[in-house]
């Protein structure tokens, strides 16, 4: 008994695959078109961002960074998005698990409802939330009697960001749960582990990367929200709103530095999280 056949089989298969890939590289019309299109797409994404980051003089950037208003708006943006992602994680995980593992009547409907925040125009989201939780509304009155203010508050911002970010976490987490074979959970149960132990010892270790990338996407979506926030809470100002205000009041030159800082904060945050979620090399098989 040995691992011979399967191990010996793979290298030759790999070289033949590599050889067939190499053939495509030279000169077919398809390749020329594919290359041209890919380059266009890359430039389309990178050029505006690069131009913007390179635009403001370093002195201007430093000046903006010392601006208290900018700092507090950046901080507000980051922590409201983080809280929205955390809420999505806490509330969304059980629902995502349910959707991945169970079939029930109306499941398709539930899935469609979850995707609604993605397709609804952003200002409409803001209006909709205000029309439910605004001061004049019954639910809004109950909340304000409890001391919770939605309009023009960080709480309101978090509500909006959770609304728009939740679908991204739910879909990613659901895909993660679906990627764990049901049989693994069944075997775990048969070996004596209860549902909770099975989740902690099998399901979670196998899909936490999906969940983390869901949290990242949810936070990314939340940080970038403008349309809905501006309706629910113009003040306190999150970074995109501040940028918009400076753009309309003073012009491009004054809004750019804020944008650069927002980009930098987001990029470093997401880069860090991406690094955390990378599989650790060499951890798979010491043999």
């Amino acid at each position: 008994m040995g691992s011979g056949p399967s191990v010996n089989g793979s290298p030759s298969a790999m070289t033949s695959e590599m050889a067939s890939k190499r053939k495509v590289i030279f000169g077919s019309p398809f390749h020329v078109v594919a290359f041209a299109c890919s380059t266009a797409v890359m430039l389309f994404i990178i050029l505006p961002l690069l131009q913007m980051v390179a635009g403001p003089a370093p002195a201007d950037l430093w000046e903006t960074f010392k601006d208290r208003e900018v700092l507090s708006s950046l901080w507000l943006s980051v922590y409201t998005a983080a809280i929205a992602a955390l809420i999505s994680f806490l509330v969304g995980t059980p629902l995502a698990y349910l959707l991945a593992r169970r079939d029930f009547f109306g499941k398709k409907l539930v899935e469609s409802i979850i995707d609604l925040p993605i397709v609804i125009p952003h200002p409409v989201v803001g209006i909709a939330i205000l029309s439910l939780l605004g001061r004049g509304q019954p639910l809004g009155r109950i909340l304000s009697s409890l001391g919770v203010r939605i309009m023009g508050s960080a709480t309101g911002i978090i509500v909006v960001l959770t609304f728009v970010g939740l679908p991204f976490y739910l879909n990613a987490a659901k895909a993660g749960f679906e990627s764990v074979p049901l049989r693994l959970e069944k075997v775990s149960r048969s070996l004596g582990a209860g549902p909770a132990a099975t989740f902690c010892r099998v399901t979670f270790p196998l899909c936490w990367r999906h969940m983390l990338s869901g949290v990242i996407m949810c936070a990314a979506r939340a940080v970038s929200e403008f349309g809905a926030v501006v309706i629910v809470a113009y003040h306190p100002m999150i970074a995109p709103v501040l940028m918009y205000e400076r753009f309309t009041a003073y012009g491009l030159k004054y809004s750019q530095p804020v944008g650069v800082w927002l980009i930098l904060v987001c990029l470093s945050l997401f880069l860090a999280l991406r690094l955390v979620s990378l599989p650790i090399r060499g951890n798979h098989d010491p043999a």
Partner: protein
Amino acid sequence: MIQLDQLSVKLPGFRLHPISLTVEQGEFFVLLGPTGSGKTVILESIAGLVRISGGQVRVAGQDLTHLPPEQRQIGIVYQDNALFPHLTVMENIRYGLRYVSQDPEQADERVEHLIELLGLRHLVRRRPLNLSGGEKQRVCLARALSIHPSVLLLDEPLSALDPNFREDIRRVLKQLHAEFGITFMMVTHDFNEALYLADRIGIIRQGAMEQIGSAEDIFLRPDNPFVAEFVGMKNMFSGCIADGAFVFGGLHYPLPEQPAQPWTVLAVRPEDIILRRDPGFAGNIVHYPGVIEQIMPTGLGHEIGVRCLDARFRALLDRRTLQEQGFGEGDRVYLGFEAKVARLF
């Protein structure tokens, strides 16, 4: 001992008819049936992994019907993909130990014994990803047996393996069954596996039990055409009874006794068929003249297609007999079989 009493399951698009079945303590029982016949559902309902809609599951006299799977202490081994990929082989094997109340020293001893018995010593630190199919299945067996189960359920444990590993694991299964003396219940669609391993076989079709009996019983005395075809009776002819004979494809098969019921199907195993160049058959052999239509190599031997009037028989000959007799396509031959080997349904 496993007792199923009127067990029934309803799933979307599938229905397991009430099934009653008793598997004796220490028996190797094989459930045999085509894909999609409900074999896995029966196993999973014994393990408590599917919701049953009615009936009772008892193991060793204890009613398990309403117990969750983690309290049943029943091992299950699936066809593939059931090792925890993020754990090493050793962690996989020891996964369930913490849930079983046993002396830790005894548990360690048991695990060591299993590792030795299954030849896994050199693999314990590896992860399952790059193990061969046979190695993976050995680890699955060790993991399932480590919790000291009273019953081991095997869901097509050999189907996903290469032929050489399949034989190896088949031998391992037999060895484990002899060594541990616990009840094995296996599901497969391969009759040869069943024949090799089983003390008794149950044949299932579309959620209903067709026949239960010893391997020999099922092989030689199938109860109905479905079972007959499943166990390799490739010659099945529909016909009717007339004048003390069964008439099929223009041929007469003399009935040895009064027909017990209005039979409509006659079945003969291809390896029971004898081909000769002359009609000099000895003994109680029914024979018909025919023409060889086709000779097909099948690996172990050759399958010979012979047409006798409107009936097309298939016979199985080994290479040597075929060479000695020098049969070729288009040859006129006499085809015979012992009267008692034919089954009528």
